[in-house]
């Protein structure tokens, strides 16, 4: 192989590897962004739900809160499904924590008219959110370590 050919092949290989590295970094950054969004949605939903469950017999305000909680719940599940498509590793890893969280969020007497305040659920939803976020971060940490190795 001539010097010129070696230079061309080297250049192409260099370009390709730097392109792939950039692509990988964009992918990682995008997933990190989505991941942080997911954690924020979970925290927001838990706060909204704590406030909702802490209140007594329903009034108009509670209906708006129910709509917000369902909206946040949908955002969480949509973001999670995008993440699971990009990060196959996360699939099914946090099912138990997700079920627990969703039950705290919109289970029990959610959307039931004239329900009593449910202080226990108000606390439980915060705990379920903390467990879910911790588990998600833990699993993502394992994945990042595996990618670096």
């Amino acid at each position, binding site marked *: 192989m001539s010097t010129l050919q070696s230079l061309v092949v080297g250049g192409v290989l260099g370009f390709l590897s730097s392109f792939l590295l950039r692509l990988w970094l964009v992918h990682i950054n995008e997933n990190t962004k989505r991941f942080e969004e997911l954690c924020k949605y979970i925290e927001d939903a838990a706060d909204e739900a704590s406030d909702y469950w802490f209140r007594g017999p329903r009034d108009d305000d509670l209906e708006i809160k129910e709509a917000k909680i369902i*909206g946040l719940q949908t955002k969480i*599940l949509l973001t999670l499904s995008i993440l699971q498509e990009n990060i196959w590793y996360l699939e099914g890893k946090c*099912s138990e924590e997700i079920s627990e969280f969703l039950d705290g969020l919109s289970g029990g007497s959610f959307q039931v008219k004239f329900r009593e305040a449910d202080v226990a659920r108000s606390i439980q939803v915060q705990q379920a959110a903390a467990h879910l976020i911790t588990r998600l971060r833990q699993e993502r940490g394992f994945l990042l370590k595996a990618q670096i190795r």
Partner: protein
Amino acid sequence: MTRIEVAKDFSRFPAGRYRTDGRFSGEAFREDWLKPALRKGEPVHVVLDGVAGYGSSFLEEAFGGLAREGCISGTDLNRTLILKSESKLFDVYRKLAEDYIRKANPGLKRTAN
């Protein structure tokens, strides 16, 4: 086989646990759609996709309530009542509904889809 699409046949906005909570509650879905379909003795396929979102209370009352009242015959959940989800979003709701059935009637077994 009976096929029920929640969004098309019932409502795109299912909400509430009891009938007193609204027209499209879990109790209404169970009593007006699930029970009559199960009475025919054929497998019932329920498609969960297409709604704006489910409250867990709706799923618990509709599906958990069905198991509590002994309306699912046999020991195999997926032979009598088959819950379907085409997207990953609704997959979570499907699993949640199946959990509620199992919790309400621990004797039922789950088979792979």
